[in-house]
């Protein structure tokens, strides 16, 4: 296995994490790989120190799930000495690690994957439920609000119409009164004026006829 393959395998094992998180983990290992390469270690030695991608992924996923179930932390099979003579924790890959441990690490990853998926599903379901509840409550509030608003608007309109009608009636009565008050003198004025004209005219013609006969 090359380092490139190792990174690809790590990425696969971290499949449940967001892309940014997977890239961040890959960058961390790339940097360590470069530093260890510059320190004189060979690719296989570095990969041996890194351990299997499944093991590395299990560590990252354990942390991502808020746990620290690193069951193999004290496993003798993970211990060893690097070529530079320092005590280091070794992984399975290229280190004669029995299948059992590799299987455990893989299972741990899958288990964590399960937990993460469950958490994600719960989160999505919770968000959907909250969204639905918000939508329904908004609709209910909207309906009740609109009914109340329309009722209030009708009430106000009724009051306005009633007051408007009363005002119109009052105005009509006042106008009628004013008309009557104004019309009566005019009527009698015209009536008596005509009567006066007729009386004066009659008188005039009567006097003319009387004087003519005389």
């Amino acid at each position, binding site marked *: 296995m090359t380092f490139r393959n190792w990174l690809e395998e790590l990425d696969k094992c971290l499949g449940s994490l967001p892309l940014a998180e997977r890239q961040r*983990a890959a*960058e*961390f*290992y790339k*940097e*360590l790989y*470069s*530093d*260890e390469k*510059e*320190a004189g270690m060979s690719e296989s030695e570095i990969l041996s*120190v*890194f*351990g299997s991608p499944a*093991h*590395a992924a299990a*560590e*990252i996923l*354990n*942390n991502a799930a808020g746990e*620290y*179930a*690193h*069951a193999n*932390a*004290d496993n003798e099979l*993970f*211990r060893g000495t690097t070529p530079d003579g*320092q*005590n*280091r*924790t*070794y*992984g399975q890959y290229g280190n004669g690690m029995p299948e059992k441990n590799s299987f455990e690490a893989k299972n741990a990853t899958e288990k964590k994957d399960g937990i993460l998926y469950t958490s994600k599903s719960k989160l999505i379901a919770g968000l959907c439920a909250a969204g639905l509840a918000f939508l329904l409550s908004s609709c209910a509030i909207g309906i009740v609000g609109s009914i109340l608003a329309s009722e209030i608007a009708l009430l106000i309109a009724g009051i306005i119409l009633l007051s408007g009608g009363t005002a119109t009636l009052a105005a009509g009565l006042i106008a009628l009164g004013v008309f009557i008050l104004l019309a009566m003198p005019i009527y009698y004025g015209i009536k008596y004026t005509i009567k006066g004209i007729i009386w004066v005219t009659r008188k005039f013609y009567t006097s003319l006829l009387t004087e003519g006969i005389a």
Partner: protein
Amino acid sequence: MDVQLKKGLLEICVLATIEQEESYGYKIISDLSPIVEISESTLYPILKRLEIAGALTTYSRAFNGRLRKYYLITGEGKRRLAEFKTSVPQMEKIMNFILRRNG
């Protein structure tokens, strides 16, 4: 060593390595390896946890034609470290008690 105990101690160890000066992944492992067992796959989650907790901060700097990530301790990290240091005598008592009981 107990996993939880080791987890806590490793976090403190990492903070202690960057207390005086900034450091990077490979150097942190090299500094800690003679003292405590720590692997690359163990260090990554520790650094991430400490960063999320605000105990350390990071920045990248060019080195040999590539970017290298450096880790710096924050005020929160210093506070944690100081808190641990003050609890050492008490831990020492606990250790002595356990060892006496088992001895």
